[in-house]
Structures are given as structure tokens and as C-alpha cells.
């Protein structure tokens, strides 16, 4: 029987499509890809009613990201990611009790200035039924340095319907708190982070795919916040995270639903639920509009208290260890023109103790922020 050239071309190209989906695509990139993003992150001032000393400014961060992905041989690709951040502002120093009994924040006072540079290099090998990657990340800022290495791999079932994935990582972090603004809890210390993850994704129809993952992370070393006055945490932390994700394409109205969930639990008593929802709406062939919503709720750590009891073995008044709920709402827009793509993102993050599903005292230091990002991508086709 003579083969139909059109059908042969179609089936050949279909076979080259990723057998979807593991951590990343199964096929090496065909072209060099470049991307950059500029982001502005602005925390709201802490209201005067929550602090001693009136309205207090918090952090503003400018961030620039660069991404390069290049095929380097038939089955190899290299990715380089660089991120710069410039941050300034103040953070909560400790929580005290006002005359009327309400907890109020004392901020760090003098503005903290810092810059961070992160460089990440990944080499990836693609084989018939999956891929494997080796990643090194170096992060450097005035008071913190981290070196991390990670290995990941994915493997497809014979029919390509199921993808099994796994990853492991280890890092060594050095902490050298900047002296001057506030007394610090250490002059020099370090911590190690080890982590493992397994995941499986399953095609469930021509238009839908689901995934599940299980992660374990072990932190060991100086886990206390060096800049907080009343902060002393265990030197070990064991974390578990179970996650699930779902993608469904709808022919009408030519869009896709993204739904993700994560349950987190650790031996500090923290537990959390995170739900992410996004709708990717295509408008014609070149524009995508993506509204998204995130809900987060966490329960407080066993040793958290607004007015920390420093007589105890462990204590902290850090709002990040308190019970609260958070809602993020935002919009992404992406426009493709030739080999270029332009993108913009705006999001608002708000917190409130009453929005959470876990009970606990409301920290006066909970924060809200705005974030805007602008991006440009180019493919060397």
C-alpha cells in the first residue's frame, strides 16, 4: 500500500510532539530562545493602627530576569537563567503590647538596602522516552549566599499516556547578617536543605491531563530569622507537600482551565492549603488573556505567639508563622508578533486572619502587595 505523503507528514510531526507531560517537554528545543522580565514589587505600608510610631513603609523590590535556552547537540539543551533584585525598605523587628492590650509592630527603622543575584545553569539530555537534567544555582546577596545542585528525570510509559518524574536537590546556605540596623541573632551561620520529589502525570483525554506529586524537604541548621528580636526556632524542619494539577482545553471558547492544589504539612505545626485557578483565553491566533486567582490558608507554628514568650525553648512573633488566609487576583496578557512575544502581568495579594481555615491570633504585621511584570521573548527561528 502506498503511503499518503500528507498523512505521513502529519503522523511524523505528531510523533515529535511531547508525549505529554512530565516536568518538561520530551523533545529538545529546535531553536534558541531568549526571554527577559522586569518586575516591580511594592508592599503596602503597615497602617499606623498596627504599629508603634505611625504608618511604616515596607519593602519595594525591582527584579530583572533573563532566560536563555539553546539546543547544543541532537539530544542536549542548555538553559541559563539570571535574576537580579534590588530591594529596599523595612521589615517587622518585633511585636509588643500596647497600653490597651493590642499587639503592635515595631519595624526595623532604618531602611534596609540589599541586592541579590542568582545564576542558574541547567543541562538536559533527551532520550526516547523522557529526559534528565542537572541544575546548579548560585545565589548571592549582602547577607546570604546559597549554592544548590539538583538532578531530575522523567520517563514515559510505552503508550506515552503516563509520565513518571522524580527530582532530588541539596543546598548549602551561608548567613552573614548585615550589622548596624538592628542587633542580629547571629554573626555567621549556615543551613543545609535537602529535598526529594516524585510525580506522575496522566493523559485522560485528547483535551485533559492530570498530575500528582509528593515532595519532602529537610532543613538543617540556623533556621531562625537573624533580624528579628524575639525569634528562636528549632534547628531542624521536616516538610511534606502533596500536590495535584489539572488542565482542560475547551474547544469553545478556545481556552484552557488550569487548576492546582497543594497540601503542606511540617513538624513545626504549620499546615496549609493552596488552590490556584487560571483561565487561558485565546483571542485569535496571537493574543492570550489569562485571569488568575490564588487562595492560600496556613495554620500557625507551634511556637508562634504575637507576644513571644522568650522563656520558652522556641518562640517567634514572625507574621509568616501565624495563621492567616491570603487571596491573590491578577491578569496576564501575552501578544505574539512574528518571533517576538510581549507579556504583561499585574497582581494584588491581600491577607487577613479571618480568611483562613485555621484558627489563631491575627498578626499585626500581615502584609498586602502589588506586583507588575513586563516581558519580552524572542525565538531565533
Amino acid at each position: 500500500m502506498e503511503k499518503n505523503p500528507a498523512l505521513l507528514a502529519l503522523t511524523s510531526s505528531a510523533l515529535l510532539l511531547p508525549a505529554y507531560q512530565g516536568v518538561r517537554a520530551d523533545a529538545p528545543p529546535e531553536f534558541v530562545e531568549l526571554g527577559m522580565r522586569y518586575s516591580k514589587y511594592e508592599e503596602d505600608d503597615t497602617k499606623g493602627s498596627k504599629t508603634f510610631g505611625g504608618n511604616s513603609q515596607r519593602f519595594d523590590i525591582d527584579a530583572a530576569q533573563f532566560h536563555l535556552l539553546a539546543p547544543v547537540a541532537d539530544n542536549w539543551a542548555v538553559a541559563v537563567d539570571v535574576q537580579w533584585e534590588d530591594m529596599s525598605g523595612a521589615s517587622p523587628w518585633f511585636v509588643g503590647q500596647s497600653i490597651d492590650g493590642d499587639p503592635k509592630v515595631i519595624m526595623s527603622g532604618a531602611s534596609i538596602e540589599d541586592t541579590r543575584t542568582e545564576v542558574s545553569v541547567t543541562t538536559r539530555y533527551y532520550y526516547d522516552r523522557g529526559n534528565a537534567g542537572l541544575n546548579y544555582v548560585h545565589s548571592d546577596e549582602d547577607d546570604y549566599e546559597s549554592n544548590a545542585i539538583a538532578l531530575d528525570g522523567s520517563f514515559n510509559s510505552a503508550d506515552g499516556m503516563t509520565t513518571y518524574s522524580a527530582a532530588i536537590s541539596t543546598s548549602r546556605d551561608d548567613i552573614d547578617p548585615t550589622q548596624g540596623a538592628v542587633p542580629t541573632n547571629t554573626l555567621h551561620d549556615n543551613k543545609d536543605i535537602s529535598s526529594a520529589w516524585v510525580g506522575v502525570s496522566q493523559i485522560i483525554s485528547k483535551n485533559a491531563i492530570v498530575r500528582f506529586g509528593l515532595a519532602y524537604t529537610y532543613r538543617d541548621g540556623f533556621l531562625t530569622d537573624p533580624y528579628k528580636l524575639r525569634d528562636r526556632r528549632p534547628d531542624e524542619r521536616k516538610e511534606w507537600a502533596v500536590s495535584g494539577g489539572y488542565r482542560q482545553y475547551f474547544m469553545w471558547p478556545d481556552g484552557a482551565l488550569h487548576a492546582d492544589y497543594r497540601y503542606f504539612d511540617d513538624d513545626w505545626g504549620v499546615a496549609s492549603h493552596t488552590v490556584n485557578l487560571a483561565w487561558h483565553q485565546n483571542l485569535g491566533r496571537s493574543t492570550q488573556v489569562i485571569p488568575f486567582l490564588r487562595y492560600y490558608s496556613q495554620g500557625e507554628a507551634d511556637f508562634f505567639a504575637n507576644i513571644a514568650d522568650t522563656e520558652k525553648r522556641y518562640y517567634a512573633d514572625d507574621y509568616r508563622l501565624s495563621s492567616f488566609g491570603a487571596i491573590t487576583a491578577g491578569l496576564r496578557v501575552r501578544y505574539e508578533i512574528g518571533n517576538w512575544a510581549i507579556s504583561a502581568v499585574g497582581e494584588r495579594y491581600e491577607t487577613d486572619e479571618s480568611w483562613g481555615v485555621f484558627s489563631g491570633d491575627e498578626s499585626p504585621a500581615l502584609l498586602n502587595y502589588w506586583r507588575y511584570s513586563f516581558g519580552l521573548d524572542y525565538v531565533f527561528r
Partner: protein
Amino acid sequence: MKHLTCLFILLCLSACETVQPWERGTLARREMQWEPDRMEISLQAQINASKEASSGGQGAAGGGCGCN
């Protein structure tokens, strides 16, 4: 929670239909990727991890930062 997760997995697996490689065009579309914009996702994850007590879940954790 564990029972619900197992039930969900079983439901999904039982609902699977065999999708041939040439029928996976929709699944390969940009809007069907787990992470269509990696830079955006990594920045969001970093911000959330520095303002909340939980992090990770979609891979190994990697290193930390002094983000306050």
C-alpha cells in the same frame, strides 16, 4: 485527605481513554502546559515562599535566599 487523594487518582485513571500520539496536538498547545511561563512561575513561587510558611511541592526545593 489521603483517602480523597486516592479516590481522585482512581477516578482519573478509570476515566482515561487511550489517546494516540497523533491525537495529542491540543495537549501540546502552549495553554495546556503545566508551566507556560517559567520565569513568571519561578518569581511567583519565590515571592510566596518568602512571605508564607509553606513552599515547594512542584519539584525539589533547591536553595534558599535571605528574602525578608
